[in-house]
């Protein structure tokens, strides 16, 4: 059974998620990252809420800084958040997270995403898929394979692997392979792009992303 660690400042989430996802063995649950790091239990995945600071634990590490700290320890991280701003979600991938899952997703969809990230796949949320499509159109992200572009276009339009398989006459496993390769490309792009370049691509104001973007050695918020 897949072993996971959970970090969320909301008690109800920490206590309910193991009950809702019996296929995952939640070894331990913490209210902040430093508690997890202190124990450093082995796990296939860390499920991490992005916003951890509250009145009972002000000033704890959170956001991209928390992701970076966990990734540096060798953990595979999946952000589990209500955050919807695309550049914040992109910052999570830039910080090394392997997946971002919205708390509004259904329990089955969330469970499946956790399993896939634990198995080494990427979980990129739909708003980011649209952003990647835009970056590919502008040739900021270089996607060499036409098949990968087809898969990206299909995913951006909401098509499932089963539907893509029917349309492209390829097996779902092959399509997942294309998607995995594409995700590596995207993840590499986000890790290497500067906030200024991304600001220009997104058309946001200069300096708007800096405070959210990870810095080498940990930083951001």
């Amino acid at each position, binding site marked *: 059974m897949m072993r996971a660690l959970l970090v969320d400042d909301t008690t109800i989430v920490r206590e309910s998620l193991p009950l809702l996802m019996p296929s995952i063995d939640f070894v331990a649950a913490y209210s902040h990252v430093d508690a997890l790091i202190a124990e450093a239990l082995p796990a296939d995945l860390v499920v991490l809420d992005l916003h951890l600071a509250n009145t009972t634990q002000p000033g704890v590490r959170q956001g991209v800084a928390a992701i970076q700290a966990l990734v540096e320890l060798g953990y595979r991280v999946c952000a589990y958040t209500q955050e919807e701003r695309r550049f914040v979600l992109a910052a999570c991938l830039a910080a090394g997270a392997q997946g971002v899952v919205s708390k*509004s997703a*259904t329990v089955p*969809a969330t469970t499946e995403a956790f399993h896939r990230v634990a198995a080494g796949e990427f979980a990129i949320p*739909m*708003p980011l*898929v*649209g*952003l990647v*499509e*835009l970056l590919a*159109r502008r040739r900021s992200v270089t996607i060499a394979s036409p098949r990968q572009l087809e898969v990206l276009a299909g995913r*951006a*339009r*909401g*098509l*499932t692997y*089963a*539907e893509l398989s*029917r*349309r492209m006459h390829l097996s779902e496993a092959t399509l997942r392979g294309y998607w995995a390769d594409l995700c590596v490309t995207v993840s590499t792009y986000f890790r290497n792009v500067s906030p200024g370049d991304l600001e220009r691509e997104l058309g946001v104001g200069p300096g708007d992303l800096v405070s959210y973007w990870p810095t080498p050695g940990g930083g951001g918020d």
Partner: protein
Amino acid sequence: MLGLPLTPSAVVGAERIMLIFACAVRLGTLVEMTPAAIAAWTSPSYGVGTAVTWAVATAMVIAFVVLAATRRTLPTAPMILLDTGVAAALLIAGAWTVPADVRIGSWIGFEPGYALSVVISAAACPNARAWLAGLTMVLVGKVVYVWSVARLSEATTLVGDFLTVVVMGGIAVLMAAYIRGLAAEADIARELAAREEQRRARMVFHNGVAMLGLLAQPDLDPGTLTAARTQARAEVYRGRMYLSGSSTSATAGPSSTPLTEVIRNAAAGFPDLAPQLMLDLAHDAQVPAEQAGPLGAALVSLLLNVRLHAQASTTVIHADAEEGRWTLTVHDDGVGFDPSGIDLGVGLRDVVTGALASHGIRTEIDSAAGFGTTVTLTGRSAP
């Protein structure tokens, strides 16, 4: 004919008018034949033959008018053949019953004038072959009628007399065909107009009826109820505009609308579906203002279909724009359907496919049972 129930057709009206014209021609000729009757009555030199032929011609005129008044339909081919055959027979008989000195240029010799009126009235018959056969019989009769009195010095008069029958009859046939064609076109135009009005009514009320159906559900969750009420108010406005005879499409204001605005406005009424809007690739695309209304209505109709039928967990609206064209897809991961196996409903057929096609927007539906549904709309961007 397209088969819609309508007020009496223009073709029927045109046939009645042609029938009245034919009767008027025949009755007018009967009046002009009066000198022959007087001559037969007052002058023994014309004999019984003139009286008999006059009586036969009069009986034919009366029979024609009575049949027209009772049947109220155009004469049939057998009737025309009988009518023209009698006229030809009267012409042949005239060679013996009409004295040579009054055979040409006199209404005592009424047969040529009578035959002309028969040929003209026969033009009302839609059977051209019957008319041509009748014309031939009359022309043969005329040859016999003038044969014994024809002189070279009167050749032009005789030729003119023959041509009068052919030309006048031909004009009558052409006029009848023209009127008949005009009336048929008017009927088709009227039916098409009625169909267009039905289509407009379906377009205006389809989404509203779907909203009523939704609002009538007793177990509607509060979120959907609020969204449905907001949408219902918009549909009430559209319905009132239609009922008052006002246009429901944009007629003033800017010449184009951002595609993303049309999509966001349509999606705003479906918070229960929470459609994911992937609009990055079309953030600059504009649609002509006259397309914005139908496109918005089509999107609402598509999302209503998802809400009512798809049982979907995810709905994605994606827009793309490149090289002067935009493409919009509405995808749901619901139960899907076999598009070839069912008749599309009013929503997909009229509000989406039909209405958008009339604005130059192409619709493609891709679905299969168990594989969700993707509807792709493609149009030209406004400059």
